[in-house]
């Protein structure tokens, strides 16, 4: 303030004479305070952060990289630092503690599938800051907007998908679709965030129907077991049949060989005998006949009759009865 006073020799002289050291000290304090105020504009942005600088509320530097920088001191400039690379999590269909403990909250996690089944779905979305300026100034509650957009897209996507697909094959497709469409919505709201992942952490049927869903899993396992058993049967049966077929083939071959060999043997024998027979047909025939009779007749009962006399057939019967009577002796 002393600067404002201007030239006033008498007074100044009087003051200087009365308290010269005090006045100088006062000036020095003011100068120091001014210097401190100016220096207070220096700030540091850590490696994982970026900063936005505003002057009287208006953005003057939308993206300050990490390092030491200077902005005009308060209240002229303000510096907003943001952890741009840090992923932020938000849970849809429950709270973060639910996700950790594995609980489901029916009221907040119930989604309607395309074929009108109710499912409890819990999704974790991760996002990070892409445009610090938009992130800071365009949206009142960024996390809520992200959560709402993701939930909306999830509900829409799930309502177009049958329950079996949601539970099994479509999970990844749902995640990708929700990520893309929710990102589009967030871009149109200028939230300045990028969703980096949408992850379906948990999809479960409601408790009221859980046992029926488990029953389906059991039935599927049963069906697989039946098929496996049948395949086991087939795998056992067919090699056996092949074995049997091979056996039949071998037996047939053996039969053929046996039959032809025997025939050849018989033929050779016959030819040999026939050769001898040709030399002495009469004697050979008689010998063959008599030898055969020698073999046959000892086994049989014989009745010799004279052709000139009459044959009384009753003797044959008597003899026959005696032979077949189990108590009687066999007579020869």
């Amino acid at each position, binding site marked *: 303030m002393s600067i*404002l*006073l201007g030239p006033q020799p008498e*007074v100044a002289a009087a003051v200087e004479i009365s308290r010269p050291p005090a006045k100088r000290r006062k000036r020095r304090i003011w100068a120091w305070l001014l210097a401190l105020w100016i220096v207070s504009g220096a700030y540091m942005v850590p490696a994982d952060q970026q900063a936005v600088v505003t002057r*009287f*509320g*208006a*953005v003057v530097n939308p993206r300050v990289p990490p390092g030491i920088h200077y902005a005009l001191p308060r209240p002229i400039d303000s510096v907003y630092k943001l952890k741009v690379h840090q992923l932020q999590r938000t849970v849809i269909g429950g709270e973060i503690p639910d996700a950790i403990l594995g609980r489901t909250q029916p009221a907040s996690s119930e*989604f*309607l599938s*395309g*074929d*009108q*089944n*109710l499912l409890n779905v819990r999704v974790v979305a991760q996002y990070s800051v892409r445009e610090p300026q938009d992130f800071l100034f365009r949206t*009142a509650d960024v996390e809520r907007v992200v959560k*709402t957009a993701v939930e*909306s897209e999830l509900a829409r996507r799930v309502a*177009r998908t049958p329950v079996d697909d949601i539970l099994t094959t479509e999970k990844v497709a749902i995640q990708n679709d929700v990520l893309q469409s929710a990102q589009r919505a967030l871009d*149109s*709201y200028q939230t300045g965030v990028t969703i980096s992942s949408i992850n379906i952490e948990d999809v479960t049927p409601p408790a009221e*129907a859980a046992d*029926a*869903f488990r029953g389906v899993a*059991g039935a599927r396992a*049963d*069906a697989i*077991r*039946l*098929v496996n058993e*049948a395949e086991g*049967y*087939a795998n056992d*049966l067919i090699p056996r049949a*092949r074995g049997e077929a*091979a056996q*039949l*083939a071998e037996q*047939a071959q053996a*039969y*053929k*060989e046996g*039959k032809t060999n025997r*025939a050849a043997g018989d033929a050779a024998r*016959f030819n040999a005998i*026939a050769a001898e*027979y040709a030399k002495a047909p009469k004697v050979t025939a008689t010998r*063959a*006949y*008599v030898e*055969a009779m020698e*073999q*046959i*007749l000892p*086994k*049989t*009962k014989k*009745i010799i*009759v004279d052709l000139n006399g009459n044959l009384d057939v009753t003797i*044959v019967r008597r*003899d026959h009865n005696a032979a077949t009577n189990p108590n009687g002796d066999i007579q020869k």
Partner: protein
Amino acid sequence: MTTKKKYILAAGAFVLLLTYLSLYSVRETEFALVTQFGRPVRTVANAGLHVKWPFQSILWFDRRLRIYNPRPSEFLTRDKKNLVIENYVAWRIDDPNRFVQSVGDTSAAEMRLHDIIWSGLSAALGTQDQESLVSATPDKAQAAPRLDALTATADRAALAQYGIRIVDVRIKRLNLPEQNKQSVFARMRAERERIALQYRAEGEQQALTIHASADRQKEEIISSAYKDAEKVRGKGDAEATRIYGQAYSKNPEFYKLLRTLDSYKKVLDDKTTIILSSDSELLKVLTRGEAGAK
């Protein structure tokens, strides 16, 4: 201190005060509405340092996007089905002057939004079937364009009446009415049971098919082997017949004799009674002596 110096100090302080009262800075997140004795005179949308008369005062409005999320409510679709729909509205203040005159604050704004959106939504949903919202065939789900139209009309109305910009209206959650849920659960259970039965039946069908096909293959293998075996046997028999025929046809009478004698050996056993004539070839010698041999 002299009187003159006091005056100068007072004047300086007054100038400072006037400066303080005339300058204001607007942040990126805000609108400033400059009012003069309560009457709005202008809206300042640009962030930065601005000047006003010291006697003018300022009302601040948050211009950021916010989400209004009304309670879920039941809507009736064209095909007379009830759906519980939770929607959300993304909105922000666009005209602070109109906003302060017609609405005032955020919670009042949300009530107005609720009225506009609810009627629009029930009209929009009343013109389409449940299938367009909930369907297992994705092509039929087309609620999004309808809500875009709703957003546009609601935006026009809200902007004209309340100075509010409606950025987006969307369905956030679809559900079934609480009183329907038990029957839905029962239906889900029945569906699951049907699917379980189907799985079992399909498994059984497949197993039976595999079983039968195995049996058929076995039969094919065995019968074809039998066929081949019989062919081989036949060849054997034919070959044997040929050999026999070839050998025996050289001397048929002798073969006849030998073969007949062989068959006697088999046919005549110990149960056979032979009545021999004393005149037979064998016994001729017995009955007639040496003359019988001739």
